[in-house]
């Protein structure tokens, strides 16, 4: 069926830019309209990529956390705080693995990602001082892997905001 969402968004953006904005005279309204045009530009370009964007982040987060659990399991024997955190992470990742097969809205996946990122940050805070001499090299590897994920995600986000980017 036409028009589909992309048709509608492009049409609204066109009308907004060619009819509404030129008719405005109040400076504050003009400013707001300019921001709205940026929002529309972004939505037109990204609305059908949002699911993939959040899903990729979800997959990478689960991978990074699973790897951390595997690597640190034995090294964390002397650190009960790390051990219990790893158990909690493991449970959360398992839940997420199961949910990953179900249809979910981009917002639901994004919300799940927030929880996974909180675990990632907690883990880094916990292990940055080390997990004991025996686990030093494994800990370094995990920290490195987590930082690598953070940088990959940052690059994706930089690309994501490239359209409609607000240069203040």
């Amino acid at each position, binding site marked *: 069926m036409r028009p589909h969402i992309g048709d509608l968004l492009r049409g609204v953006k066109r009308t907004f830019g060619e009819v509404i904005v030129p008719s405005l005279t109040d400076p504050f309204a003009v400013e707001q309209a300019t921001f709205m045009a940026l929002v529309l530009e972004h939505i037109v370009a990204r609305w059908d990529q949002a699911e993939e964007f959040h899903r990729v982040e979800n997959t990478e987060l689960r991978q990074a956390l699973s790897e951390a659990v595997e690597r640190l399991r034995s090294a964390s024997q002397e650190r009960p705080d790390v051990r219990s955190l790893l158990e909690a992470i493991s449970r959360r990742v398992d839940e997420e693995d199961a949910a990953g097969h179900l249809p979910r809205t981009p917002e639901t996946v994004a919300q799940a990602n927030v929880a996974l990122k909180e675990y990632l*940050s907690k883990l880094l805070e916990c292990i940055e001082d080390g997990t004991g001499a025996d686990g030093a090299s494994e800990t370094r590897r995990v920290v490195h892997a987590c930082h690598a994920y953070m940088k990959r995600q940052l690059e994706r986000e930089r690309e994501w905001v490239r359209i409609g980017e607000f240069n203040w």
Partner: protein
Amino acid sequence: MEERLRTFLQSQIPGATEVAISGLQRRPGGASRESWAFDVSWKEDGKALGRQCILRRDPPASLLNSDKTERSFEFRVLEAMESRPVSAPKAYWLDEKGKWLERPSLIMERVEGQPTPLPTYPSNGDPVIRQRLAPRFVEILAHIHQSDWNALGLSFMGAPKPGTAAAQQQVALWEGAYRNDCLDCVPILDAAFRWLRRNLPATDQVALVHGDYRSGNYLYDGTGRITAMLDWELAHLGDPMEDLGWACMKFWSGGGLAVGLMPRDELYRRYEELTGTSVDHRRVSFYEVLGNVKMATIALTGVKSFCEGKTTHTMLAMVGFMVPRLLADLVSQLDL
């Protein structure tokens, strides 16, 4: 709004008759505070008087939470700065609790001049104007930092003790805002806060810190004269290196120049000449990291206000798009 303003000003100028408001118009910009321009005229003892004003009013929600940037603080700083050569607008009237104007508000002098459209002087801007702005930009900063805040009655802002307290207070302030006022978890920001907590610099210097000292927050005229230094809402007592770190952030370094005006070395040299204080590079670097964290937190706070429907300012939807650039600078600074 016009009638509210008229009634408020009538209450503030007891002998005034025929108080009239004209030209009331909301101004663009001002994502952290609503900004309205207007003229007020009245008669007093048979004389016709008037002022050109800016009303700064707390919005329902904004980039910055009101409890961190109270209007009364800003008003008292502006009052104190009247005796200093820092081109601050005169503070006229304060509605501290929003009794008259719905939300906490202050009214100040409307100064002629234009702001830079971005928080940096444009790289394609007039080089002659840039050359005139740069020395005055540093001169005003030096005057702010050399202010005797105790004698000016600003000790109510709370002076940090010597040591790491100044840095610690700022880290705690912005980490609190991040934890309480942001919707998302940002692991790079979490890492940056951990780094900041581990690397607090010590100082026994306590100065009045502007808190948002950059291009975009001053007005200048066609000759390159700075006519007003604005946006004092983040002013506090702290480490003077904080303002230098903020001004040196890559985020607003147009064409590789600090705030688009001058190379970092020149900023340091001029500052040292004017204040007689050596620039502590380590502390400046710390406050550059804090600056990126602070700016990202401010942006994320605005996004939350927008997402929760607490504001109709569309700019707050878009400020979140600035965050990845700030995070990229943090990755580089912290060598993640």
